[in-house]
């Protein structure tokens, strides 16, 4: 009888995508390379592959989401997987079932992939300990949103050709933002210089320890940047008063053509959506196809998620 050789490369590659923190640079680059191949496919008329034929993907969304959920949904379907989306707002959890019990129930249905979004930081980590399939984090609390960072990276590479050596500003509600955290890790890893800009009450403690420069003056923070990532004010996560008013916030931290002038001439704007127009970004700027990458981010999001699903599905 032939003895099966242990393939250590496969053995060591992680089973789950829980966050950029757990990702090596090699893995991140391999996902981005793979995603590039899917961009063209998604633009063609015949978009369907059968890479994941026969596989089952469950989208487990405990928080409302439009773009991320539909993006994962499409990505799975285009790869040929059977995709089931569960809106957990009105399910067993409301009846008191714990996350673990839900996980065990779903696990019994033998899925190959679970995509989870949860309001609590660390929920995907907990889930991954209890199921046999791969877990992909689609956003947990304010901790990580790895596929968003990967799609942002792909969008930047697509436009600027590289990330290494670029100067990137992340501006807005850093405290409550998982997108900011994942992007800080990933952009740092890929060799960019990262500035974070926020009012003091929305800046997390010890953020400087994460390898970024922090600014409360938006104009200074934007100086010489190639990419300006705007974040949404997360009103739903805010308890109590963090800011005097939206008007004051817009005055100091809203991205306007005037403030954008402090960035490089060819600077581009990104936003993970959904946008609060007139709160964090000037509405005309958001729609200006010469500087705004918002639509491209959504488009490439599908490609990145296809690459992730393919990589982690065993």
């Amino acid at each position, binding site marked *: 009888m032939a003895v099966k050789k242990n393939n250590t490369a496969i053995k060591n590659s992680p089973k789950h995508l829980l966050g950029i923190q757990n990702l090596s640079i090699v893995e991140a680059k391999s996902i981005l390379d793979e995603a590039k191949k899917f961009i063209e496919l998604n633009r063609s008329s015949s978009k369907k592959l059968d890479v994941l034929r026969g596989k089952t993907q469950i989208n487990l969304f405990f928080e409302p989401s439009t773009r991320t959920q539909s993006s994962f949904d499409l990505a799975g379907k285009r790869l040929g997987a059977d995709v089931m989306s569960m809106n957990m707002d009105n399910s067993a959890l409301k009846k008191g079932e714990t996350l673990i019990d839900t996980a065990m129930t779903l696990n019994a249905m033998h899925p190959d992939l679970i995509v989870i979004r949860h309001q609590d930081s660390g929920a995907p980590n907990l889930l991954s300990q209890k199921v046999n399939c791969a877990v992909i984090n689609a956003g947990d609390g304010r*901790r990580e949103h790895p596929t968003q960072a990967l799609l942002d990276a792909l969008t930047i590479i697509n436009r600027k050709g590289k990330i290494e050596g670029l100067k990137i500003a992340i501006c807005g509600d850093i405290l409550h933002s998982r997108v900011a955290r994942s992007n800080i890790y990933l952009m740092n890893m890929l060799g960019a210089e990262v500035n974070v800009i926020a009012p003091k009450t929305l800046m997390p*403690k010890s*953020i400087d320890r*994460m390898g970024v420069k922090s600014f409360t003056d938006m104009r200074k923070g934007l100086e010489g940047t190639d990419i300006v990532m705007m974040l949404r004010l997360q009103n739903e996560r805010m308890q109590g008063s963090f800011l005097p008013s939206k008007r004051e916030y817009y005055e100091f931290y809203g991205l306007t053509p005037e403030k954008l002038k402090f960035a490089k001439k060819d600077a581009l704007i990104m936003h993970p959506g959904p946008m609060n127009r007139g709160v964090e970004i000037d509405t005309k700027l958001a729609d200006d196809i010469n500087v705004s990458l918002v639509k491209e981010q959504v488009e490439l999001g599908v490609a990145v998620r296809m690459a992730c699903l393919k990589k982690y599905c065993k």
Partner: protein
Amino acid sequence: MKEKIFINARIIDPSQNMDEKGSLLLNEKGKVKAIGKNVKKSDANKDAEVIDLKGNVLIPGLVDMKAFVGEPGYEYKENFRTLSQAALAGGVTSIVTMPNTKPIIDNVSMVDFIIRRGRDKANVNLFPCASITKQCEGKLMTEFGLLSGRGIIGFSDVNKTIQNTELMSRIMDYASDIGVLIMQHAEDYELSKNACINDGEVATRLGLQGISALAEKIIIERDLSLLSEYPCRYHINQISSKQSLEVIRKNKNNGKKFSVGVSINNLSLNENDIGEFKTFLKLSPPLRLEDDRLSLVQGIKDELIDVIVSDHLPEDEESKRLPFAQAATGAIGVETLLPLSLEMYHNESLPLNKIIETLTINPAKILNIKKGTLTKGSDGDICIFDLEAPWKVDADKLKSKSKNTAIENRNLQGKILMTYLNGELVYSN
């Protein structure tokens, strides 16, 4: 009962400044008859039981000022029997139990119940606390006088804080008159809302809401200001930060009288130990920076902190197997209290005497009980341990009903060999 004589012991009893090779003689009633280097085997009766300790350490049984017993209401987490077993295996012979059971111990009939139940089921000295306010709600004070009369040792809302300053001033005013002990958990609720971990780098990385050290400091400052007006017996259950310690230093140096505790967890762990969402290390007050931990150790050395507590808080696995923010707070610790404390001796942070003092005579003095000492006539509550023996913490082998230890797999040095309660052998390894 026969007389017992423990020979070849290294006796450490900080209540009488004793650290010497000698013997301990217990009389037929289990009380200390003689102690020290001058006690000879021949001082005992002929039929006395002779226990040769072969140079191991003999100390008064430990007094743990903060532990939770699940009875009534949470028997599935811990009951009197399992708590006793865990305590005795850790050399702890006296336990102050917390009142946040279900129902809460805030009235006389509950006290009668718990004392009766403890007497029937427990095998350690129990000193029950009642809550400061009815239902621990921070609104109406409990019957301090009546409850003390029924055997309540002190008053604590456990992990809750009296937020209302006016109420706190009245509590302290009233308590100062009748001489009861008020034990406060220091935490400003507005500053700690939804928070579950120290406010710092780890909170930022894990995406969790942090509790600022200010939340603790502000309440301590407030209470110590009130204490100038209303000098009651005031004790801060647990402090966790350098900032709080500095407030305490200033006030103690000014001659203000109050006492301070610290959890062994905050002395031996820091926020980095939480790793990726280890819910067993979700504690209140939270683990803070290494700098805070070091200053707490220094606080013991400088006699600003009086007692080390286990803050024994058993939680079943279900309450811990949740996302971090939702998971229950607390860890068990009564069984590992002494061995984990000895770590500070082995790594040369604290002298052995000091550690034993904070675990025996200091809490006994604050509580005003005749425990934590082996002076002539004291109860024969004794802990005997091997100072050097190494062992590894294995949650499954711990006696507590719940297994939520914060130090699973930790290598410790110092092992409890025997525990005596009123002269009777109640634990032997």
